[in-house]
């Protein structure tokens, strides 16, 4: 093991890996800072490039992008009052209010420091938790994997939007698309409609690039109006003031780190949830809760720490169980598979150097985030002044080029565009997209583990109840579903039959 760890550290400190991490972090910060461009979209666009790089180099670039993108959204949240990504939505409430009264630099400085601290906690969770969980995961059989994946999909449906029915509808669509191709047990073609290009199924990258990249292009171009959000000017920041702020709110920092780490480690939930939970908890614990939303620095620190603590923790279920912690790690998992690496309990024993290199890179990218984040704050005004029509037309071109690069197939480009329009329709119908992508990714695991479990249990469903871990996860799924249905029923009755839609 020590040999593998040593090899991994040397690997990560090689110039090409450091360069790739730096490039990923810079691209991530810029993408996150631009409203409409998200870390998820950046991940989908950059993933095809990594196929042509060494696994550690490629994945290091994606880790840098993940962290940079999660922080980058703060810049636009604070300076123009529009969160660059959903994981920075809570930061906007107090960050923008601070910027309006001339404290934008303090808000951004605290947010960067909080992001780095949160990131460190998440990475520690990954380093300590992953090997421990891997030993448990090795005991998992098909029934356990089936129950865990069903639980993960349910959790995504639970947190995506206000309606469970919409989440499950999206998951159903995702399952349907994933089943196109070849039957995993028998090997016979399925749902190909006689189209030879569909015999290998639909790739995760055309789907992800379409749903997260091309959809955003369509949404932005369709709704564009020439009025421009003018960024608030940010002056240089006082490092000592930021240090004082962080020290003064150390409890909030620790609490938010724990919230982010716990939420990230749960399969299916990510930074979009953790930042609101941390914000709510900070407000509840505060002696002056009435100042939240009016420019309280705690309201900036809490969500930022929690959002970045998710980054490391969300990789635990992805690397150990092959079940993504959130939608960004779902695309990262697609990139790992594209590199010939299968996330799951055997990853650590089959590819120890790559596994530990990922760990080491978590800390390298954390330092990169601190370094480049500092400059990004200074250059924020320029990043935000790129005209949107030019920006999103360029993104459209990159979506096409990135998709084509994966398989040199114009059919895949057409599939990507079709998913772009499907994503657009879903956004207009207020149906969440993340459950579709997660169900698509987990579909094969669900089907295979279910069918293998039935073979193992001589065709009966009792096998799921005879295995304690599987039964536990199925019970958790049932409790989550029942609780949510009751909650929605009560909300529906309280609102005299009206449902909040968005």
């Amino acid at each position: 093991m020590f040999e593998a760890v040593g090899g991994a550290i040397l690997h990560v400190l090689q110039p090409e890996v450091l360069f790739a991490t730096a490039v990923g972090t810079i691209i991530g910060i810029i993408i996150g800072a631009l409203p409409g461009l998200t870390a998820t979209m950046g991940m989908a666009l950059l993933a095809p490039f990594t196929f042509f790089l060494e696994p550690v180099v490629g994945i290091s670039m994606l880790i840098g992008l993940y962290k940079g993108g999660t922080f980058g959204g703060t810049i636009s949240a604070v300076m123009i009052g529009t969160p660059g990504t959903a994981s920075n939505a809570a930061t906007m409430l107090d960050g923008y209010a601070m910027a309006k009264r001339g404290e934008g630099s303090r808000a951004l400085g605290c947010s960067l420091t909080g992001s780095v601290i949160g990131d460190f906690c998440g990475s520690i969770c990954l380093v300590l938790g992953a090997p421990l969980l891997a030993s448990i995961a090795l005991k998992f059989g098909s029934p356990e994997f089936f129950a865990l994946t069903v639980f993960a999909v349910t959790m995504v449906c639970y947190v995506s939007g206000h309606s469970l029915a919409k989440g499950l509808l999206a998951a159903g669509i995702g399952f349907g698309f994933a089943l196109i191709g070849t039957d995993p047990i028998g090997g016979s073609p399925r749902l190909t409609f006689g189209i030879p290009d569909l015999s290998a199924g639909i790739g995760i990258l055309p789907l992800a690039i379409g749903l997260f990249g091309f959809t955003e292009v369509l949404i932005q171009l369709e709704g564009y109006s020439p009025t421009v959000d003018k960024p608030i000017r940010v002056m240089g920041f006082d490092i000592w003031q930021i240090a004082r702020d962080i020290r003064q709110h150390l409890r909030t920092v620790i609490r938010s780190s724990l919230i982010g780490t716990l939420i990230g480690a749960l399969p299916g939930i990510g930074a979009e949830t953790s930042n609101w939970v941390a914000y709510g908890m900070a407000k509840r614990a505060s002696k002056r809760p009435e100042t939240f939303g009016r420019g309280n620095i705690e309201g900036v620190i809490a969500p930022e720490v929690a959002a970045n603590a998710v980054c490391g923790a969300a990789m635990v279920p992805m690397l150990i169980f092959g079940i993504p912690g959130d939608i960004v790690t779902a695309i990262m998992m697609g990139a790992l598979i594209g590199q010939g690496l299968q996330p799951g309990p055997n990853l650590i024993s089959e590819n120890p150097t790559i596994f530990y290199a990922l760990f080491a890179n978590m800390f390298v990218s954390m330092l990169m985030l601190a370094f480049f984040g500092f400059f990004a704050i200074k250059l924020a005004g320029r990043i935000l002044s790129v005209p949107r029509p030019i920006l999103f037309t360029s993104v459209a071109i990159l979506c096409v080029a990135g998709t084509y690069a994966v398989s040199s197939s114009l059919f895949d480009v057409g599939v990507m565009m079709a998913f772009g329009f499907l994503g657009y329709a879903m956004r207009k119908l207020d149906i969440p997209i993340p459950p579709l992508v997660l169900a698509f990714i987990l579909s094969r695991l669900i089907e295979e583990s279910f069918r293998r479990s039935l073979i193992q249990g001589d065709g009966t469903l009792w096998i799921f109840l005879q295995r304690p871990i599987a039964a536990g996860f199925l019970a958790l799924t049932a409790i989550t579903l029942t609780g949510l249905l009751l909650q929605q029923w009560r909300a529906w009755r309280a609102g005299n039959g009206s449902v909040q839609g968005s």
Partner: protein
Amino acid sequence: MTPTFFPRVALAMTAAFAILVALTVFTRSDPLPLLVMTRTNWLRIGTLLVINAAYLATMRLFGFVLSSMVLMLVLPLLVGYRNMFAVIATALALPPVVSLIFWYGLKVALPGAQAFELLTWFQ
């Protein structure tokens, strides 16, 4: 268990929840984003659909660089962006740069122009 079992489950799940969602549309307190779209929005998305279909169809004939240049000229103008210098400069610069990055950096050839190959065939 037959290979059609899971497709049936997925279809049943999609159909059941689609019906449920359709029924709750009428009980929403705020309007569905689709229902608040103006005529301009519908026109824009329709045009975007046609332009992107044409872009995909012509890519095989005119190649990635040429067809992307045209797309980058048309889309910003379609949505009302009028800084012609920025539009033309980006349209002329970005597609060749992307193509060169893919070729020299990743050894991937983006679609070339078959129309020019046809011309050389006629000569």
